[in-house]
């Protein structure tokens, strides 16, 4: 994408709270009309970024640019963006109509226009007829819709959303994901969305920014991030994966778990220690032979579309998904094509599923987030 | 936390509280330990010592009234806390209603019941028991305390009991507890914060009252509150002994509160939340 349609740019942003570094010299460019998701575990600094963009928190270092202009010193009410807050933050002393009209009133908009805009916004979020309801008697999902309508009524160039679906139940959340994406597309404005839910990020986003400890790991389209994770952290955070230590003997040849496999990666030093990431769904279970990793099926769980299996290979427990059922106790071979093997620079990241190696717990399926 | 930057607004309140709460309390201390010329003395405390029997009587009667209030309020508060919401509101209103009526008028109303030729005695006589002298007895004073302060026991008990989930009681029964066991193992332990605040809210005004004893106790009935009133405004005028007596009363109240605040209420509230 060309740089002309950049709407927000963060340069060298640092922020500490009580001596704890939350953001560390962070750079981020956000394009106009995109749905951008800041994704990371809690405490990774994603909400702080949102608050800095919104103007509620001041960065210690660095600059924020909005459409090319530095807005470091611009107070929140003068910024052309609006926020949907995590716990809705609706004004309980006002009804639905007045909540949505709040920003317009401040701008001294004529009453007729306010009425028109509020109607339009409530239709957009499917809350027609709720004008005179008190906000504290609405359900969580309805409150969320009011919060969205209230923010959008001000015609922001950018809408900031801070884990807006976090408090909703699963079914409602799925519905709202689709709706939010639709709203974003129909209005054609930029959404910056903060979440720790990787599935939510994959569903809605044009661009995902994966963060950890105040730093950006990877930024790209959902497909890129899923298929070509840049490091073990990203791979583990986005979807399930098997992460094993390996040695890169030479270009296109990697050894892990005592076996050599062909791969598509190159450019490492000879015999460099690396992380190898393999997605469970890429694993094909076959009759074992000595060229491949072999193991014993330890658990099988039927997941509807496929079987999820754990294969014990000595210390390591592999996660595999296959449509063909293999009985527990059977010895199987793990078949991998070069395409399935992702080699990454060694990082000190320890995936949380590695704990399983020490204490295998077959009851606990899916050790990833959510 | 919102940064309102309004620190200054606490200023007037701080000044007010120093001038009209802290300094007055210190004045009691000062008067209690000085004589008319402002010299330090223990004499006031010594003369206040004469009131120890009165003090003991006040504490004793206040304790009896507090215990009666607790026993009367507990089942009542529990039964209304189990009723549907609109009925609960009605009962709370009925409890609060007399509380909102002037305290003196309430006591005045009660006094008419106890008069020698009042309605109780009229009834007693007509059924052949004969008149009983009630005015001026400890009985009348204790009933007066209970009548006036019972709402202060019911309301805190009720508000803590509404937080006790019915399923807790049911599961206790399910696990084999009988009614008595449910009472002692579930209801009472979980009501402790309400019991504690109810006890202080009844005991403190009861132990320091002078109106109830004057209205229902007659001329010779003397409680510690009457002693203070007589020393500050009445016929045994002496601000210094009055302060010393007030100081002793205050110490009693503080000791009571310390005893009760040691009961750990936080744990119970956590269980309920």
């Amino acid at each position, binding site marked *: 994408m060309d740089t002309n349609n950049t709407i927000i740019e963060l340069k060298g942003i640092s922020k500490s709270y009580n001596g704890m570094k939350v953001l560390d010299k962070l750079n981020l460019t956000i394009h106009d009309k995109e749905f951008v998701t800041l994704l990371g575990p809690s405490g990774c600094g994603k909400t702080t970024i949102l608050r800095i963009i919104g103007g509620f928190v001041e960065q210690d270092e660095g600059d924020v640019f909005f459409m090319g202009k530095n807005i470091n010193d611009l107070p929140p009410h003068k910024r052309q963006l609006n926020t949907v807050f995590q716990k809705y933050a609706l004004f309980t002393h006002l009804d639905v109509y007045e909540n949505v009209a709040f920003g317009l009133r401040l701008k001294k908009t004529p009453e007729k226009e306010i009425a028109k805009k509020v109607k339009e916004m409530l239709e957009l979020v499917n809350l027609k007829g709720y004008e005179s309801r008190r906000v504290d008697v609405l359900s969580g999902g309805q409150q969320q819709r009011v919060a969205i309508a209230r923010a959008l009524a001000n015609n922001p160039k950018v809408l900031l959303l801070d884990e807006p679906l976090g408090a909703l139940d699963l079914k409602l959340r799925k519905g709202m994901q689709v709706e939010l994406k639709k709203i974003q597309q129909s209005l054609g404005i930029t959404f910056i969305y903060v979440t720790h839910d990787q599935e939510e990020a994959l569903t809605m986003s044009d661009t995902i920014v994966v963060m950890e400890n105040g730093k950006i790991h990877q930024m790209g389209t959902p497909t890129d991030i899923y298929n070509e994770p840049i490091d073990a952290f990203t791979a583990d955070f986005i979807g399930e994966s098997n992460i094993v230590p390996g040695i890169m003997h030479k270009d296109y040849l990697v050894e892990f778990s005592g076996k050599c496999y062909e791969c598509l990666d190159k450019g490492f030093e000879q015999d460099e220690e690396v992380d190898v990431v393999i997605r469970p769904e890429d694993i094909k279970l076959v009759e074992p032979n000595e060229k491949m990793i072999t193991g014993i099926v330890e658990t099988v769980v039927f997941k509807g579309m496929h079987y999820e299996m754990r294969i014990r290979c000595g210390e390591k427990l592999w996660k595999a998904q296959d449509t063909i059922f293999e009985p527990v106790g059977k010895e199987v071979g793990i078949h991998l094509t070069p395409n399935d093997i992702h080699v990454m620079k060694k990082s000190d990241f320890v995936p949380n599923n590695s704990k399983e190696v020490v204490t295998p717990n077959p009851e606990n399926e899916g050790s990833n987030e959510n | 936390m919102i940064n309102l930057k309004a620190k200054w607004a606490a200023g007037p309140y701080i000044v007010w509280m120093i001038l*009209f709460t802290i300094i007055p309390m210190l004045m009691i201390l000062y008067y209690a330990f000085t004589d008319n010329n402002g010299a330090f003395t223990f004499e006031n405390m010594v003369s206040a010592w004469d009131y120890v029997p009165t003090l003991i009587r006040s504490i004793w009667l206040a304790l009896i009234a507090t215990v009666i209030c607790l026993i009367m309020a507990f089942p009542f508060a529990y039964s209304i806390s189990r009723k549907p919401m609109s009925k609960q509101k009605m009962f709370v209103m009925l409890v609060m209603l007399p509380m909102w009526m002037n305290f003196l008028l309430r006591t005045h109303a009660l006094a008419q019941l106890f008069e020698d030729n009042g309605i109780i005695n009229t009834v007693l006589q007509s059924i052949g028991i004969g008149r009983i002298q009630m005015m001026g007895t400890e009985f009348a004073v204790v009933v007066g305390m209970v009548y006036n302060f019972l709402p202060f026991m019911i309301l805190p008990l009720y508000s803590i009991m509404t937080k006790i989930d019915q399923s807790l009681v049911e599961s206790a029964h399910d696990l084999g507890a009988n009614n008595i066991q449910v009472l002692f193992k579930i209801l009472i332990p979980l009501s402790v914060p309400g019991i504690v605040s109810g006890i202080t809210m009844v005991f403190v005004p009861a132990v320091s009252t002078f109106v109830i004893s004057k209205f229902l106790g007659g001329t010779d009935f003397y409680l510690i509150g009457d002693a203070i009133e007589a020393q500050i405004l009445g016929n045994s005028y002496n601000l210094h002994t009055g302060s010393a007596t007030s100081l002793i009363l205050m110490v009693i109240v503080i000791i009571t509160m310390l005893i009760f605040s040691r009961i750990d209420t936080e744990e119970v509230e956590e269980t309920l939340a």
Partner: protein
Amino acid sequence: MSKNTKFFTTIYNIFIMMFFYSPIALVMVYSFNSSKGFEWTGFTTNWYVELFNDELIMSSLLNTLLLAAIASVFSTILGTLAALGVYSLKSKKLKTTIKTVTNIPLLSPEIVTGVSLMLLFTAARISTGWVSLIIAHISFCVPSVFLSILPKLRQINRDMYSAALDLGCNTRQAFTKVIIPEILPGILTGFLMALTYSIDDFIISYFTAGNLQTLSITIYSMTRRRISPKINALSTLMFLLVFIILLISNVYAIRKERAKEIKISQNLKNSI
């Protein structure tokens, strides 16, 4: 609950209600009794006529209302400022100290508060009367106002203030358009509490009023060891007044509660 328990509970609740209300009912009956004694000698409304013609009662009623109005307005202003100020304070120590001092008038026996203020007025040569009474009443009303507003401020979540800024408020507008309306119920509760405390107070007024007569003080001087049918008439009127006020506020509250319940059930239906 078994049938038996239910029966006994009902009996018991009726007993408690009788305990509360029989003296009041009796007073209401006596207020229409033509003689001063306890025997019924015929119906009369004379006591009510006498009550309204009693200059002392009427002037002390006026004093009480004026005092309550002044004290509660001042207390509300002082208490609201205090809540905003204490909320903004950063020092934990200072906050705890202020809260502890706030509890002194609420927890100490009224007679001690009355004595302490009386000593102060004597020592500071503040003449007893209006000034001392107003000071005394503000002193015991302010803490309740303060304590009814502070939790409301705490309930406002940080995001609500941010949201106001986000939607175009400057900090002053965020304060007047969001913070104040959000704590308004607390301010109102505090004001009403101050008003009722002030009207109801006898003990502290008794020690600080000097020669000024409030209604409570007048009632006290009229009823000490004497039964007065005029006071019975006054009790009847006061009871009815409080009853009507409570009834109105309760009906309103119950209606609100019902509306809320209905709306919640509707929402549930809608979401299904």
